């Protein structure tokens, strides 16, 4: 969290007239290369993006994320002035909102805050938009915990391995993507039957195969980047 935040609990009275911009734009913070996703989003995300693991710079802990770009602060699926067409991860949908316990908080200094969707109706009741945000956080909160346990399971079964991605583009430039990890398929294939059944029963096998399948999005992402480099 940068110093440029002013996070307060959402208040029916104080924030009654507050509006929030919901569109996708770099100036709203949508230009992100790697966005954390929860297991519940894997099926949606895998349809467009590679789902990989990376480490949190603060804690060193693993988390799952969708790759939206190659370079820092790059979202190749974002076109300014146009609606975001592919699946929008919850962590981008959440906009300026946070949770504080069971309450919802808002960063009043977030550039999204000002015009746009109203948070409350004329009757002072939460708007449909705010209700959708409340639902989002309900999903996100339980999802984060589920995803944490999922990642811990992968780690304890030694199913995570670093992935080395080197890309060459038509303009002659190269990129080496570091600090990314994926599922070790050899280790997966070597698991004992009871472990496999356990993974299946917990819904993890599906998540694992979605991650593996999503690797096929990597060349597509590189193509997008290539097209952008060509201008």
């Amino acid at each position, binding site marked *: 969290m940068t110093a440029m935040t002013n996070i307060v609990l959402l208040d029916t009275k104080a924030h009654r007239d507050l509006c929030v911009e919901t569109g996708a734009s770099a100036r709203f913070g949508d230009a992100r290369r790697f966005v954390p996703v929860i297991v519940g989003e894997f099926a949606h995300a895998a349809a467009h993006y590679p789902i990989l693991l990376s480490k949190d710079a603060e*804690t*060193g802990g693993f988390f799952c994320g969708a790759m939206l770009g190659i370079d820092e602060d790059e979202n190749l699926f974002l076109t300014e002035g146009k609606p975001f067409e592919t699946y929008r991860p919850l962590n981008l949908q959440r906009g300026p909102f946070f949770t504080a316990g069971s309450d919802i908080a808002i960063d009043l200094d977030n550039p999204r805050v000002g015009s746009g969707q109203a948070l409350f109706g004329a009757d002072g009741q939460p708007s449909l938009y705010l209700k959708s945000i409340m639902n989002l956080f309900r999903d996100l909160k339980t999802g984060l915990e589920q995803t944490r346990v999922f990642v811990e399971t992968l780690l304890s079964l030694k199913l995570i391995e670093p992935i080395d991605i080197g890309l060459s583009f038509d303009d002659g430039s190269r990129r080496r993507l570091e600090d990314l990890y994926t599922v070790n398929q050899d280790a997966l294939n070597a698991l004992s039957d009871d472990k496999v059944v356990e993974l299946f029963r917990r819904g993890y096998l599906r998540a694992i195969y979605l991650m593996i399948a999503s690797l096929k999005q990597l060349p597509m992402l590189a193509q997008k980047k290539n097209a952008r480099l060509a201008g």
Partner: protein
Amino acid sequence: MLKPVSNVVIVGGGTAGWLTAGVIAARHQGRMKSGFTVTLIESPDIKIIGVGEGTWPTLRSTLEKMGVSETDLFRHCDAAFKQGARFARWTTGVEDDGYYHPLMLPQGFHQVNLVPHWLEDEGGRSFCDSVTPQGALCDDGLAPKTITTPQYQAMANYAYHLDAGKFAPFLQKHCTEKLGVRHVLADVQGVKQAENGDIESLALKQGGEIVGDLFVDCTGFASLLLGKTLGVGFKSCSDVLFCDTAIAVQVPYAHPDDAMASHTISTAQSAGWTWDIGLSARRGVGYVYSSRHISDDEAASELMRYIGPQAKGLTPRKIPIRGGYRETFWKNNVVAVGLSSGFLEPLESSAIVLVELSAKLIAEQMPANREVMDIVARRFNEVNHYRWGRIIDFLKLHYVLTQRPEKFWRDNTDPATVPDRLKDLLQLWKYQPPWFLEEFDRLEEVFPAASYQYVLYGMGFRTAVDRDDNAQTRSLARQQMQENAVMTQKMRKQLPKNRDLVRKIQEYGLQPI
């Protein structure tokens, strides 16, 4: 019939005992189901001597092979990072006199010897700063990695500072719970020997006896089995290394978040040197001196002066030390590891690394039966004689190049106190700088040629340079030094403070990959 070696008995439960138990048990895990045993007998009363809170990078692979979690080491042994040592005031004794002996090899060490190139054009930089980022990292108090670096992996090579008093119980827990080491809390009262001198069994004061095929003596200075029982003599090295007494104190941090040096600070004093080791919970500080050159009281006040205001209320603990080693390390079916095999002043933290190397050698070369044990023992003794000799040479090297005026230091430069081999090398190094090819060809040399380079050129030693000879490798050398400069800049920006990373590891832990 051949008598198989399948029961290893270790006597003594300090760092040496538990490390040896762990290394052997981990290496022979697969044989345990067919009757291979590792038993450690530890006296319920004997206090552990916490030797050397400084370690070598080898400890990382030793612990990793034992299956120890690095995070647990940080959490339970007050561990912190060590990236080498700074020797302050060893050369001239003036305020800013000092040099680093870092743990990273000089850039491109295996391709080109940078020494003659640095000598040809020092460019206003120390040898260390010209060839490795590590001195600068230590200056900045930085950690050698980040929280995202997997456990035991490094961005800059590192070892640990740790609380030896906590390390032994930590290893004990791991060895008994994870590696199947049997732990017997009892005093050895009698030793039963066979006609050929082999130890057959140990009688315990608390009753019962322990039989074994191979006995590892980790009984510390007592050297109960090798020294007392088998009568192996002790070879003193006090004619070369004069320090015979140590006093130690634990210095608390004024604030738990105080900066923590990521290197050992070794400062020359009037009749020896002080160590200063940053653990996460406190500093370990002590003075190693020659009692022929200074009285205990004077030494104590010199130590207190070094510590400064923080010394208030601290009483130093006195530890008599005896530099030297056993004439034989492995005799009959007894092998000594740790203090029972010898002791050297902790100037280069050689104690724990010697334990690791011996334990590894015993584990790797574990004789299949009694009949081949003498062959293994002979080889073990050869290697260890070589190692102890080289370490003594290397420690002496720190003393011979000094210009300090005090009697202790003048006496140290007396040629009669310098081992012949070191004397020859010093002569040779006037014309050719040490490198790894000819001189240092032993597998697992404790101190590689790079260590000699850091000390020699850190202390102002100069080797003649042949410019024409340099021409051949000049561009490669320049490239390596440039790479080092770039890497130094990058790492200084990237790496967190030692204190901050240690705190994060305690809180979040390190990842296994």
